[in-house]
């Protein structure tokens, strides 16, 4: 009876037998894929992370899409070139959102990625430091057990526009100009919104003075950031003084051992100074001639935070009020 049915419906019976076998082998082949599967190699997250962090984009991807030069530090942690590159590479993004602290949220294939805006910070090595311009100072402190990160560059126009949620489209040239139009209160607010604080004067000193060994009570101070030798470098590549071209926020000049830039020259810069609140302004800038004695580390004047450049003398006697000085820069620090 059974053989009769089989012979009559042999096609169906063969199908019934073969179908599970086919299914079995399909699942087995999929199963093997799982066996060698590594989540890190399956998606473009690592690639996106590399682009965000190092800014090594394909030149063709930025053509007609972003005017940020590939060589600029500004290209790192910036959404515009990343989105250009992803579009060029055919990576479909479901949505993206730029926060006012510069963090970028991307959604692709049910996966949400948070790219943190931390490309332009440097950690201050743990040590004992001394604030102020002189060798011996009572302002001795240490950051052992504390992580302190410092913005390597000045806050720029693009960052302030982003913070204010303005949909203003800035050119690259406008974007990288140092932000100088904020009141002192607004600068504090800006840094809080970035998750940080206005850079403290003694932290700037720690990041600027060339490290020297010696007894703790007498921490030797160098006058200039580039070496222990107290020799001024009179070229615009080392630091920006009067007669040099105008400085951009992201320029690698006035370099210190710690990786912080504009520690000498460039623009006047305001700090928070809990040791001596009035001594809150670095005066060394591109508005002063190269031989001006303000071009030394640790010297501070006082800025009252009004829109006009308005400071008192400190430490080294009066600044020549005849110098035309416009614009005070700032940056943030983070714990």
């Amino acid at each position, binding site marked *: 009876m059974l053989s009769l049915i089989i012979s009559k419906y042999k096609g169906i019976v063969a199908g019934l037998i073969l179908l599970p076998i086919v299914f079995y082998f399909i*699942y087995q082949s999929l199963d093997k894929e799982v066996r060698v599967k590594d989540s890190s190699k399956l998606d473009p997250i690592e690639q996106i992370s590399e682009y965000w962090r190092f800014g090594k984009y394909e030149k063709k991807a930025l053509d007609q899409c972003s005017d940020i030069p590939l060589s600029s530090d500004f290209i790192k942690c910036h959404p515009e070139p990343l989105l250009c590159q992803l579009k060029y590479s055919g990576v479909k993004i479901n949505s993206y959102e730029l926060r006012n602290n510069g963090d970028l949220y991307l959604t692709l294939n049910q996966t949400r990625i948070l790219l943190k805006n931390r490309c332009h910070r440097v950690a201050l090595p743990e040590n004992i430091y001394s604030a102020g311009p002189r060798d011996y100072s009572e302002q001795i402190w240490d950051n052992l057990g504390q992580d302190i990160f410092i913005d390597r560059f000045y806050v720029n126009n693009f960052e302030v526009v982003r913070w204010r949620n303005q949909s203003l489209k800035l050119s690259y040239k406008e974007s990288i100009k140092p932000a100088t139009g904020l009141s002192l209160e607004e600068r504090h607010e800006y840094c809080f919104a970035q998750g940080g604080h206005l850079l403290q004067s003694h932290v700037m000193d720690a990041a600027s003075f060339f490290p020297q060994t010696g007894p703790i009570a007498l921490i030797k101070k160098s006058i200039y950031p580039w070496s222990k030798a107290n020799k001024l470098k009179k070229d615009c590549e080392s630091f920006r003084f009067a007669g040099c071209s105008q400085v951009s926020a992201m320029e690698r000049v006035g370099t210190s051992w710690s990786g912080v830039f504009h520690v000498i020259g460039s623009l006047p810069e305001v700090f928070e100074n809990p040791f001596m609140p009035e001594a809150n302004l670095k005066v060394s800038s591109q508005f002063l001639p190269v031989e001006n004695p303000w071009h030394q580390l640790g010297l501070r004047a006082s800025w009252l935070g009004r829109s006009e450049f308005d400071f008192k003398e400190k430490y080294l006697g009066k600044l020549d009020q005849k110098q035309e000085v416009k614009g005070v820069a700032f940056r943030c620090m983070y714990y």
Partner: protein
Amino acid sequence: MYVLLSLLLFISVGSAQALEFEETLIHRWKSLVSVKLNPRIKQGSPLEEPVGTSLKVFEVKLNAKNFRPLKDCVFYQVPSSDQTGTLYLHQAKMQESCEDYLLDFEQLKKEGLYNFAFELTSKKLKLFLDSKVVSFSLPKDPMVLVSTLSDESQYKLKNRDICYQVDDQCEVLKKNDCDFCPKSVLNIIDSNCKTDFSKICADFGCGGMNQPACIRGWSATSFKLDYCIPDSPIGFCKPGLRVFCESARLICK
């Protein structure tokens, strides 16, 4: 013939279930942040004892929606003579204890295991499921966070909340959640720990009236006594204010 057919169908369905478990886990654990092992369980060799019991193997910290922290508690029911092993996991809030979910098999699970082992290195977590190996990368770039979960935990912090805390012995009392502060973070002095400091959420600085004292540090002062005294040298304030110790914390007044 029917036996053969049933067997083939059983294998197919079983294989599909297995695939679902691993595929789900691979997607879900893309958002893996860290792994906390059960110190009593040895990694690298199959879990065979105590026979028939359920064990917490490890906890996996994940990023939920909006990158709030969540955890997966991973359990294993060790195989016995009358049942195979089951690997199962339960999603929990960070403050919950995994042990509360030890007997909850309802969530994602993989049954029919004979050999289960795991291995954790600084870069990868590997699960050995009989003959299969499934590996998961641990995050190597702290600037990039990934979230694959839709669950939103109710984790919120406000200004002045402690987001990281250590005690006098530098033991961590509260792990670092300062990324969830509404704005900024400030280091404070509230213990005798010389190598670490507690942190609070803050949209204010240090050294001002009623603000936390700024940190001068232990090494810079060579101070050896208890930090919690008036005019403690470990902290400093802006001129005109003094350091006080209130509620075990150095503040300026």
